[in-house]
């Protein structure tokens, strides 16, 4: 259940969707991408209703599970999903080479996904989401369980993509990732506690870090209800 959520995702920005597990982050993301049954309410993005066929090329989505074919190689997965997204031969190969390098998957092209480690799997899921060069990239907990170096590199990549004009919505339940976002949506029990820049949240709550700011907002929210 999601309650009256309204927010703006700016292009050239990494928006963080933060909140504890089970607070509705995934449901919200699935709704935006158009794979969630919406029983009531209206969802629009990029000026079109969520799930509109015209959006399917413009929105990239990576789920928590990698959702790739484990019985195919990395290259076969990327070629298939790339073709489905409308990429044709020369550009497809170019895009794959570039993504493989950028996500540090070099040398794994001909290995079966079933033999990948957790981190390699997560990056494969991400590579598929990036294939179509989407205008909006929805990433559900993309950095869970990754080693710190890789996490830092991925966040650098998110900001590079944002600088290139992509809007990113990245969810996480780890508060130390909040500081890496340009804009934050704090979520709890299906509602937004706050939506602001990290600086504004810190200034507004007077908290020393974003974790305390979240706790502060959650406590206040509980008192009001």
């Amino acid at each position, binding site marked *: 259940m999601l309650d009256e959520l309204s927010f703006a995702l700016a292009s050239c920005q990494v928006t963080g969707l933060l909140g504890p597990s089970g607070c509705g982050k995934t449901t919200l993301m699935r709704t935006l991408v158009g*794979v969630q049954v919406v029983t009531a309410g209206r969802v629009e993005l990029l000026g079109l209703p969520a*799930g*509109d066929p015209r959006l*399917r090329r413009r929105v990239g*989505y990576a789920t928590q599970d990698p*959702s790739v074919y484990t019985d195919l*190689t990395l290259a076969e997965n990327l070629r*298939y*999903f790339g073709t489905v997204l409308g990429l044709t031969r020369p550009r497809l190969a170019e895009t794959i080479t570039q993504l493989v390098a950028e996500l540090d998957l070099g040398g794994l092209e001909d290995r*079966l996904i079933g033999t990948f480690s957790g981190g390699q799997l997560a990056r494969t899921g991400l590579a598929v989401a990036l294939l179509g060069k989407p205008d909006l990239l929805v990433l559900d907990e993309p950095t869970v369980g990754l080693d710190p170096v890789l996490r830092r590199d991925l966040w650098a990549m998110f900001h590079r993509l944002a600088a290139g004009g992509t809007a990113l919505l990245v969810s996480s339940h780890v508060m130390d990732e909040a500081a890496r976002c340009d804009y934050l949506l704090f979520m709890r029990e299906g509602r937004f506690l706050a939506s602001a820049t990290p600086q504004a949240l810190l200034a507004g709550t007077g908290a020393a870090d974003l974790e305390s700011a979240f706790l502060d907002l959650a406590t206040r929210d509980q008192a009001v209800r």
Partner: protein
Amino acid sequence: MTATSAGQEPTISWTLTWATARRVLAQLRHDPRTIAMMLAVPALLMILLRYVLDNPLALDRFAPEFIGIFPFVVMFIVAAITTQRERARGTLERLMAMPLAKLDLVVGYAIAFGSVACVQVGVVLAISLTWLGVQLPGSVVPLAVVSVLDALLGMSLGLFASAFARTEFQAVQFMPAFVLPQALLCGIVVARDHMTDVLRWLSDVLPMSYAVDAMQQIAAGASWSGLVIKDIGVILGFTAAALIGGALTLRRRTA
């Protein structure tokens, strides 16, 4: 979402259908043991049938029916499991969020499994007609055509049935639940004319009855007779209906 505000659903595209067929075949290629079983199991069952009957006349009579049924059963189960896996592993959801038409997926599967069925039937026929010495009254062509169509029918029914399975365990259970009743009612165990009315009606609406009937006609020397053509029409109709039903049960949105 109203129909006017929504963009057009993508229509079937040859490029995406072909890409899907190639992807399914690539998955099979990485699993040589499955390929070996798909090709060998129907042939081994025919060899078994030859020694169980141990009578050339009986074999000539019954072999075509079984050549029609074994690929049907194998394809049913392979298609049901493959599609169920596609749902369970999230790849279906990913594809449904992409510009892929549902028919691209379903027809892609049909092309991939259809080409496997051709090889499968080729192996069964080669072994049956040479080594096992099955004698056909007419040409082998109608037998081969109907066998491939039966395999495709099994595939499309498996694809459709998988929509009702939430787990791989359930998908496997559909084999006995969907296929065995058809095997009992299709005229192999008891001729359909000798069944009570209710069973006969039931038999009339089950696709395997037509697969077996066509084979019985062919075994009796009918080749391309009107009855065989009619059976082929019904088999194609069931196949198309199951494929369209399979496409309709793919949901873009899930709870």
